[in-house]
């Protein structure tokens, strides 16, 4: 799906400082070597299964299906993975790759903290040093995850530059990588950044759609009619879509964070409000002003609060293969509460964006149709923030 220079249509590429070029060239060479290496793949599969708890369940949400009165709804339970989100799939792959490359130190950016926690976890497991960059604002919204990372032995550096959120954490991690390349691997958490990251992260997350496919064929003897996932940078979404891209009958729907609405400035819905640009190493769609200054974006979800989107999503959007729909804070919070009440599952507020859209979509579909929603993570980390949104102050 990628051409050799890391392009997805016009998107992708390697728009990075010269200082980093040899690092990404070295990474690409290592990845090309290990991606086809059966021993590497066996080691990774062992980690994913025995350590992270894969395969994750594909759960039939019967009550939700009944209540919505349309399509049959399955939940892909990435929230049940070790560390509570899909992020571990990519991190175990990259950490193993970094180790093979002789790197001893992992750095990472994090928004909601899930990728940071996953990276800190892999570093602890593999005996590597770990530094996580996190926007100051997010360290406050996600204090529990900051504690978890520190508990796992990682250093968490609050980023105060710019808007002090995910995009600034990415910038700061990139700056740190230019300072220290020899022993350090930048464990990027989403399908973004310069080539080869969008391809590497996608491949490590593609396990999600591989399993959905197998599990649904076993349970229903057929493919789904629609696959829904939330999209910030887009790693759980591309992982959920990947093995269905060739199956035109499967609708692929990415749910973007609209924040207070796509007609306001307080949004992070890149596909719906952004335009083509070059930032963080890639050509893709970005929220930006008329002079190309990157816009301060907003979402209640720290994990979707990013002004860009991965280049493969931008391409799937261009060719009309995937749809990208905006979901507001209010809709996501309602879905968060709804899933807790209806199925006894508290989803991450990120994943709740996909649940919210499913609530609109399912009733418009037939009872013989099937929707799969990827629950990318669990919602324990969000309880305090959602309580606050509802006007209740929790003291943790």
């Amino acid at each position: 799906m990628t051409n050799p220079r890391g392009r997805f249509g016009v998107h992708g590429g390697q728009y990075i400082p010269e200082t980093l070029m040899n690092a990404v060239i070295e990474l690409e060479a290592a990845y090309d070597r290990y991606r086809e290496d059966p021993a590497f793949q066996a080691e990774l599969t062992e980690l994913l299964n025995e350590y992270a708890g894969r395969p994750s369940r594909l759960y039939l949400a019967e009550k939700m299906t009944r209540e919505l009165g349309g399509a049959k709804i399955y939940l892909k339970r990435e929230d049940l993975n070790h560390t509570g989100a899909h992020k571990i799939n990519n991190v175990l792959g990259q950490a193993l790759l970094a180790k093979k490359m002789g790197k001893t130190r992992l750095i990472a950016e994090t928004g909601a903290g899930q990728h940071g926690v996953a990276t800190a976890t892999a570093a602890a497991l593999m005996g590597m040093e770990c530094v996580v960059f996190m926007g100051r604002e997010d360290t406050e919204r996600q204090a529990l995850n900051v504690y978890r990372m520190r508990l796992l032995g990682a250093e968490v550096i609050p980023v105060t530059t710019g808007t002090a959120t995910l995009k600034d954490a990415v910038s700061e991690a990139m700056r740190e990588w230019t300072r220290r390349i020899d022993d350090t691997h930048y464990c990027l958490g989403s399908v973004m950044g310069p080539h080869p990251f969008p391809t590497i992260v996608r491949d490590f997350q593609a396990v999600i759609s591989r399993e959905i496919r197998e599990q649904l064929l076993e349970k229903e003897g057929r493919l789904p009619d629609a696959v829904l996932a939330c999209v910030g940078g887009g790693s759980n979404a591309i992982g959920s879509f990947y093995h269905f891209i060739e199956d035109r009958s499967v609708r692929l729907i990415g749910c973007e964070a609209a924040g207070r609405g796509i007609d306001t400035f307080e949004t992070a819905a890149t596909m719906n409000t952004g335009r083509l640009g070059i930032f963080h190493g890639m050509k893709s769609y970005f929220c930006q002003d008329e002079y190309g200054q990157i816009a301060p974006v907003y979402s209640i979800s720290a994990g979707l609060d990013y002004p860009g989107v991965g280049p493969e999503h931008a391409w799937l959007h261009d060719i009309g293969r995937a749809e990208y729909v905006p979901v507001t804070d209010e809709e996501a919070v309602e879905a968060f509460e709804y899933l807790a009440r209806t199925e006894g599952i508290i989803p991450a507020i990120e994943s709740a964006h996909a649940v919210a859209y499913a609530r609109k979509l399912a009733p418009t579909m037939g009872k013989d149709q099937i929707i799969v929603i990827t629950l990318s993570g669990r919602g324990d980390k969000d309880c305090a923030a959602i309580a606050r949104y509802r006007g209740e102050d929790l003291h943790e």
Partner: protein
Amino acid sequence: MSNIARAFDHGKAFIAFLTCGDPDLETTAAAVRAAVENGADLIELGIPFSDPTAEGPVIQAANLRALQGGVTTDRIFGLVEELRRDVRVPMVFMTYANVIYSYGAERFLDACVRIGIDGVILPDLPYEEKGEFLPQCQARGIDLISLIAPTSESRIAMIAREAEGFIYLVSSLGVTGTRSEITTDLTAICQAIREAASVPFAIGFGISTPEQARRMAELSDGAIVGSAIVKIMAQYGREAPGHVGAYVREMKDALRD
């Protein structure tokens, strides 16, 4: 012959960087004139970007101050137009790919020709991606400046051979900002550039003292100073141009010895 070559035709070049619009465009203009009057051979004008990933804290902060002050690409074109009434030294823009891409490369570069900009430096546009803007630059005689880093090793000849205007050699790993010491052994890199390039090259990143400038210029054709000047702008604000002039004189004198 590129206009930029003129900066290097009378000894070692001193290249000064300023962030446009910090604290305001009038002060930028006065500081540019002060730098030129005191011996700067080439001026790099930074068009601020919201997320300058190759910059250290000093220039990041200047970018934010300038943007908060309401500076835009169009207003910076106006600044250059006004400067070109009397400033004759070569001037280049230093900014990020998205600033040009978003404006429209052809439209941006047409403006560069009209106002008298000689080249552009884009720290997030490596050799592999220069096709993004190179044809449009070449069609207009604007030099797209290449950067070489201490990590470039096997890439030096490839980059240097095709370089235009001058080559910007990054002295150290990391981002822009003053350093008490430049520890990279640049001798072999400089040798490799010399062998492959047909244009001059200057060293930047981390240079703030006359002694550092002299040492870097001994290895190359000139020294580039950014953060140290931007610090003076931050410290003195609208009163900065005189201080910038005095600083540039001291630095340029060190290159003349």
